[in-house]
């Protein structure tokens, strides 16, 4: 029996009764319209590549991208119906451009450049292909994979393939691994070749026995690969906790796992990297789990194109989206309410959670009774109880001492709290304040250092000016003396002239005197 890795805290959840149909992949027909949202800000060069009315093909890039924003691709062939620009929203992270694409249901692809032997390419060119394919971390963070890979070159020794879905209702990654395990292993090799790692750890939860046996059979004779089994517990999927449970090391806030020598990738990201390099396909679709809480039968996995409107997705499955149902993106624990059903499936949405809205069962927030359940449950060794107290009193210095920025917002503490306190809501506000304080302090430091630099510069300039002045003073003196000489000469001449003039006047006077006689 292999060693099972574990971590402190967290909660064990009863796995929901699985329907075998969940593991088959279902396909969704193309909707009429796709909505693509693009991030945009004044200071970045993420420019559009298309115009209104232009025809696009499947997989055609719509933007140029920036060094932090990857290009976005058209999910269908058709034409661009409209481009909306919403500059008013003050939120920096919000998408400000919305492109509407009308599909012509032909799905004509652009010509794809396939690569058979990726080892003939340099890592840099492979990273460029990954960037151009618009691949971001599909686990939820949406961090560009190309950036992660460039940072990781010659710095990491282990690649961790994250195949864990700790949320009890999500099965998207599991489903992907069941169906495409060979392609994922090729993707692992590509990543290993790019960043020159020596070990590849594939991490899976203990209850996926079928899959474990399958992978074990494949990687039996391969030295590079290793299989790690982790306890089924929430939250195991977060990269911080994953590294902690595998190695026992903690990543402090502000540092990345790459600095410790570990490169963490989600299986879906690795699959997308394989598709982009070997098949040349940009990232335009992903697997999304639909989980309907009230009708467990409807939970299924779908290949969904990015940009599909959520109301189309729900309509196709005959889920009525009226006021009685709440629709979240994300699972049971980490979830965000989707308010606008015209919003579309994004690259980081791996689950859509539908729930009946029960109005009468409103939770009442009782005061904290200091039971300490949350402290035991927190997987990153924080003190949620004290953090809550200081959040309420907005004591920012104490919050910083308690490392509130290390909180991964896993909502475990909220779930175990007997007083129904929405702890994470408070922590989010607290974290935002903390981040703002940090940003402001950084700005102040930068500005005062710039000011000091300028003063130094002015001082140096002054020095140069004065030293120059001395030289010029000497020159001026020189010129002055010369002009004086000249003036002297002139005055001498004038004296001579005056003398001669007087002489002539005298002569004339003598003449006149002679004539008078």
């Amino acid at each position, binding site marked *: 029996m292999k060693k099972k890795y574990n971590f402190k805290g967290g909660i064990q959840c009863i796995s929901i009764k699985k329907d075998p149909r969940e593991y088959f992949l279902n396909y969704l027909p193309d909707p009429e319209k796709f909505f693509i949202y693009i991030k945009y800000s004044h200071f970045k060069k993420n420019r559009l590549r298309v115009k209104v009315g232009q025809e696009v093909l499947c997989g055609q890039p719509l933007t140029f991208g920036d060094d932090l924003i990857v290009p976005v691709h058209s999910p269908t062939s058709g034409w661009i119906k409209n481009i909306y620009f919403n500059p008013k929203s003050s939120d920096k992270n919000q998408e400000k451009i919305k492109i509407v694409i009308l599909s012509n249901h032909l799905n004509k692809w652009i010509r794809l450049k396939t690569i058979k032997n990726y080892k003939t390419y340099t890592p840099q060119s492979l990273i460029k292909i990954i960037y151009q394919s618009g691949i971001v971390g599909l686990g939820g963070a949406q961090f560009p994979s190309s950036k992660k890979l460039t940072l990781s070159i010659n710095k990491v020794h282990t690649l961790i393939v994250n195949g864990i879905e700790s949320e009890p209702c999500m099965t998207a990654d599991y489903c992907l691994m069941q169906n495409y395990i060979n392609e994922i292993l090729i993707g692992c090799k590509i990543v290993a070749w790019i960043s020159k790692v020596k070990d590849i750890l594939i991490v899976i939860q203990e209850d996926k026995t079928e899959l474990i046996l399958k992978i074990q059979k494949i990687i039996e004779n391969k030295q590079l690969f290793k299989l790690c089994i982790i306890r089924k517990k929430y939250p195991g999927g977060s990269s911080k906790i994953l590294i902690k449970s595998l190695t026992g090391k903690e990543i402090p806030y502000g540092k990345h796992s790459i600095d410790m020598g570990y490169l963490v990738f989600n299986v879906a990201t690795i699959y997308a990297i394989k598709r982009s390099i070997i098949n040349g396909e940009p990232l335009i679709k992903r697997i999304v789990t639909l989980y309907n809480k009230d009708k467990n039968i409807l939970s299924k996995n779908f290949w969904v194109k990015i940009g599909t409107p959520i109301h189309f997705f729900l309509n196709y499955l005959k889920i009525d989206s009226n006021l009685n149902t709440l629709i979240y993106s994300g699972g049971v624990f980490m979830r965000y309410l989707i308010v606008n059903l015209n919003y579309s499936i994004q690259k980081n949405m791996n689950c859509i959670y539908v729930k009946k809205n029960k109005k009468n069962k409103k939770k009442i927030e009782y005061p904290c009774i200091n039971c300490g359940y949350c402290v035991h449950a927190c997987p990153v060794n924080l003190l949620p109880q004290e953090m809550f107290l200081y959040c309420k009193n907005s004591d920012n210095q104490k919050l910083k001492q308690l490392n509130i920025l290390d909180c991964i917002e896993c909502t475990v503490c909220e779930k175990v709290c007997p007083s129904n306190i929405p702890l994470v809501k408070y922590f989010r506000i607290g974290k935002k304040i903390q981040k703002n304080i940090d940003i402001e302090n950084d700005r*102040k430091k930068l*500005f*005062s250092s*710039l*000011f000091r630099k*300028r003063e130094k510069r002015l001082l140096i300039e002054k020095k140069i000016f004065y030293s120059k002045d001395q030289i010029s003073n000497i020159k001026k003196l020189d010129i002055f003396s010369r002009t004086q000489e000249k003036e002297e000469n002139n005055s001498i001449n004038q004296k001579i002239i005056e003398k001669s003039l007087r002489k002539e006047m005298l002569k004339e006077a003598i003449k006149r005197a002679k004539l008078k006689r």
Partner: protein
Amino acid sequence: MTVILIFSILSLFLGIILSYIKYSFPIKKNSVVVAVDNLLPQSQCAQCGYSGCYPYAKAIVKDSENINKCIPGGSDLTFKIAKVLNIENVEKSLDSSATKNEKKIYTTVLIDEKNCVGCSKCASFCPVDAIIGSPNFMHTVLQKFCTGCNICLLHCPTNCIKIIKE
């Protein structure tokens, strides 16, 4: 061996002298002034009437200068300083109109490069060297370093500098 001994004794004596100097002549910095200075936005724009943020902080603490003179900080800053200095009823003690000015810290400026005549007035007045360019050529603002103090706006003869909100 003796050389090492001599030098070690010498360095010990020097160390004792240095520590004595540090003990007897400590660097004096008023902690309240530092606290107020930390609150100020460090734009060093001199719009408060002092040559920089530190002199203004000093004036607030020592000469009881009005606390609402920093224009980039706005009314938010006024309240923060009031909290540090334990001043109550800020709104009453100051002009109500003056306390309502908006915070300008998170803004930057942009030069309309077509209209710039290259007089380099803005560059010589920018307190953080955020404007680059040379005389008789186009000038431009480095967005990253601009503190948004809007000093340059006052000095441009062609009015080609605009405020943009971030």
